[in-house]
């Protein structure tokens, strides 16, 4: 009896997976021309990287010191300054600092430089804009 139930459940699971696959495939086939064009450019860009001498990670390793310094300033402000506005938001932790200094987060570092600038503007003028 149990064996039959398990077989029935397996068949139903397989039917569900088949339906999910069908719906997913339709959404893939329905990608518009712009998306396909962007993917095409991304692929050719990636293949062009194959022959380039300096790797992305090496470039990130030599990221400008200003970005790291800005991240450090913001991290110190976030960790030691006034509490967040939203009481429900958990306070920033040391792990945030590690994420900020992660090589993969360079784009974030660039943005944090901007946030650092805003912070300095607020301290200098009392407001922004």
């Amino acid at each position, binding site marked *: 009896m149990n064996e039959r139930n398990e077989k029935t459940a397996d068949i139903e699971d397989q039917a569900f997976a088949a339906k999910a696959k069908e719906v997913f495939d*339709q959404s893939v086939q*329905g*990608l518009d021309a712009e998306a396909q064009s962007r993917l095409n450019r991304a692929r050719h*860009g990636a*293949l062009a990287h194959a022959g380039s001498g300096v790797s992305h990670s090496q470039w990130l390793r030599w990221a400008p010191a200003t970005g790291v310094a800005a991240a450090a300033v913001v991290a110190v402000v*976030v960790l030691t300054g006034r509490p967040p506005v939203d009481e429900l938001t958990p306070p920033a932790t040391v792990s*945030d600092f590690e994420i900020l200094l992660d090589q993969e987060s360079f784009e974030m570092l660039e943005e944090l430089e901007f946030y650092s600038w805003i912070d300095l503007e607020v301290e200098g003028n009392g407001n922004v804009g």
Partner: protein
Amino acid sequence: MTAGACQIAVSCTREQITGTTELQQERELNRFLAEIEKRALRIAEISIRDRDEAFDLVQEAMIKLVRNYADRPEAEWTPLFYRILQNGARDWHRRQVVRNRVMVWFGRSSSDDDDRDPIASAPDPIGRTPDEKLESQEAMESLELAVAALPRRQKEAFMLRTFEGLDVAATAAAMGCSQGSVKTHYSRAIHSLRETLGEHWQ
């Protein structure tokens, strides 16, 4: 033929072989990426719910695969590619958590500039009628929301097994876990999705 001439001839032949091999490898990589890129984009989009960011993740995964793993056997490319993509999605989620904290700090919401329009206005590329297209879009939207709500490992196992069609071994390689874990995550994902979507979805 002198010894010097022989050496030059051998050197030229070696360079030709190397050049031919690189060209062939590039062609194989191009074919592989062209085959996988659309599904990868949709899988990334379902993972992070943002198409522009999904494009970036897919391109980054392409670059890393080409740069670091082009010499590996072709059979390993798919699990390697998805492993890179999953790691990228995981890092993206971690950065979002930090970004949201910073946004809260400055009293801004990260969703302030979210102006994505989910309704495509262009004609359907595969020639479905508007009703068929709408029905399929609604089914996919329900599925996407349900998949997005799954725990991360269940989500990965389900998408790799069902959407990409990887077997258990390749899924385990892509997820960096045992085959037993893949089976458990996949089974739980299926049951959870069936319960969430209900009988009418099928």
